[in-house]
């Protein structure tokens, strides 16, 4: 099964293309080497034959037919001319001298020039049938002269080169093929491991991880990244579960109240006043349920980033001013002094409604959880690091170890569990800040709490 996957994998196909290209180039180089070696060797032979022919021709010019016959006979006995073949005939092709018995059939038609033939009937002492390369010509008196050379060993040499080259080419293809199968198999094996883990996750759960080989190669990095992605997903799933548990709890409480109330009313006799109160209480509880519901969908909607299209340039100071004005009455009722401070013109790119909602939530929290008769300051400034909105109260504050947790949905400090609110306000603030690329900072105001929204990243703390 792994082999089938290997052969059908794209890596293997790519390897085949690479092998093909490389093989064709290597073959072309080897063929070129073969052809040029061959022609070099032949050229040398041809030159030697031509020189020999010319020297016999010169002898004819000096000493005539008899001189040539004498020279040929002399050369046939000379060891240093052992590879040479000679044939001198009269115009009717009957032999006058030489070590070749008959005029070769291959050269019969052509009276002059180069020819190659198997000297079957020459040199009876030769063990093998030699391959001969020869040049032929007609002497001025009409005699014919053939000078040749046994090129069997040259031929053998080139044939050997040829065989070697073919073997090398074959070897290249075979080795490359085998190596690419092995390499592809390794790749396919890693991918198969990832696939198997994915299938296991789909079937059983998010607790599986892709095993690392410790080779620190790109596959390990892919596996590492996938694993950390799985960690993140698992954490998010955990959070979702936590949230849905909380949602279930926060929704169940009013729903249980409503159900109990209605059930009691069903069994009791109808009393107009009671019914009136019951219905009105039920509607109030229903509204609370709906509000939680709306808040959750609203946060989810903001978190999908869909709102970015509606971003405009807005003045943060103006928004903060409007929030302060809206909450002025509530602060007054609480005996809190609510003050706006800072610059008048702090421009950011964002969504007015959302920014208003975020600042309003922070101000609402500051008034609600601050000290009765305390001070809440909303400050909007242009700082070097960007636009900053800070909301400060002088109430009990939040313990430093719980700073991060308050942004979780439905998270409420133990002491404020029974205060009005649904624990979604800061999640909304976090979602809005995230959408605007703003950073939230929570500082201890000793006493109290300071929320800072940085609309551009502040300089990194040293």
């Amino acid at each position: 099964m792994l082999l089938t996957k290997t052969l059908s994998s794209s890596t293997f196909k790519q390897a085949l293309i690479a092998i093909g290209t490389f093989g064709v180039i290597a073959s072309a180089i080897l063929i070129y080497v073969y052809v040029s070696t061959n022609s070099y060797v032949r050229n040398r032979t041809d030159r030697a034959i031509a020189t020999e022919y010319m020297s016999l021709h010169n002898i004819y010019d000096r000493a005539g037919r008899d001189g040539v016959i004498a020279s040929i006979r002399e050369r046939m006995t000379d060891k240093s001319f052992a590879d040479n073949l000679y044939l001198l005939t009269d115009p009717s092709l009957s032999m006058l001298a030489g070590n070749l018995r008959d005029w070769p059939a291959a050269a019969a038609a052509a009276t002059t020039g180069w020819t190659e033939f198997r000297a079957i009937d020459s040199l009876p002492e030769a063990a093998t049938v030699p391959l001969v390369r020869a040049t032929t010509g007609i002497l001025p008196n009409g005699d014919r002269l053939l000078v040749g050379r046994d090129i069997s060993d040259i031929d053998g040499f080139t044939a050997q080169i040829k065989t070697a080259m073919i073997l090398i080419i074959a070897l290249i293809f075979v080795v490359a093929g085998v190596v690419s199968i092995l390499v592809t198999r390794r790749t396919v094996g890693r991918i198969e491991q990832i696939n198997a883990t994915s299938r296991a996750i789909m079937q059983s759960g998010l607790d599986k991880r892709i095993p690392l080989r410790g080779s620190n190669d790109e596959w390990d990095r892919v596996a590492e990244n996938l694993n950390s992605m799985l960690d993140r997903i698992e954490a998010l799933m955990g959070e979702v579960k936590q949230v849905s548990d909380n949602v279930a709890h926060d929704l169940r409480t009013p729903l249980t109240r409503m159900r109990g109330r209605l059930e009691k009313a069903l069994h009791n006799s109808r009393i107009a006043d009671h019914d009136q109160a019951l219905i009105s209480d039920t509607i109030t509880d229903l509204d609370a349920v709906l509000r939680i519901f709306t808040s959750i969908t609203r946060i989810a909607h903001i978190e999908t980033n869909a709102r970015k299209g509606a971003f405009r340039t807005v003045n943060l100071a103006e928004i903060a001013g409007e929030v302060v004005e809206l909450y002025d009455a509530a602060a007054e009722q609480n005996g809190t002094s609510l003050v706006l401070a800072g610059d008048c013109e702090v421009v950011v790119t964002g969504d007015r409604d959302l920014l208003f909602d975020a600042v309003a939530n922070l101000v609402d929290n500051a008034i609600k959880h601050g000290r009765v008769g305390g001070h809440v300051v909303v400050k909007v400034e242009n700082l070097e690091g960007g636009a900053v909105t800070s909301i400060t109260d002088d109430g009990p504050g939040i313990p430093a170890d719980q700073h991060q947790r308050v942004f979780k949905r439905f998270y409420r400090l133990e002491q404020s569990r029974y205060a009005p609110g649904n624990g979604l306000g800061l999640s909304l603030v976090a979602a809005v800040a995230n959408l605007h690329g703003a950073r939230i900072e929570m500082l201890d105001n000793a006493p109290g709490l300071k929320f800072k929204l940085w609309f551009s990243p502040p300089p990194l703390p040293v």
Partner: protein
Amino acid sequence: MTGGHRRILVVEDDPETAGQLIEQLTTSGYWVDLASSGAEALRHGAANDYAVITIDRMLPDFDGIAVMRQLRDDGIAAPFLIISALGEVDDKVRGLRAGGDDYLVKPFSFLELLARLEALGRRSETIAKETILRVGDLAIDLISRTASRRGKEILLLPREFQLLEYLVRNEDRIVSRAMLLQHVWDLHFDPSTNIIDVYVGRLRRKVDDLQAYPLIHTVRGVGYCLRAPD
């Protein structure tokens, strides 16, 4: 209001919701026509003169917004109240931009619907070009932006004046908290706190304390109504 202007077209595909709407609107003195699909809405809308058309976003055949556009293109001037389960701010803004006059998110309280219908129906009436509006012994001057009762000036912040003006303009009608947020603060969401009540509470102390009779009345579960005694 003439009989013709108490006539409302309800475009709603859920039979139970439609039934409740018809029953309650009829009880409140409206003539109600029902269209349960976009095609029906187009037919009714073109054939009759309605004071208000309420339209659901998700209809079985067309998007409510498309129906609204078509009716507008056909020259129907009646105000549209979009009633939809899509409640995000950008859904609202998109609906309003496409020619809707107001937006209500499902589920809604019937009193809220009634308040919005009243406010929309009034738009088609001519708005008096007076510069001083009076309700009982309250007078507000739209030019100098001041308010007084029995000639005694009430000191108001600019936003408080805007709030009072909106209540006065909707005299005798219920105004919901969401409507106040929308028209006085230009906010298209519910801050889900009692912040509006606190704000109106302070305005009420300024307007009604130490007076012969109260003008600003709380309507339980919905909002407020500014009304002089008969």
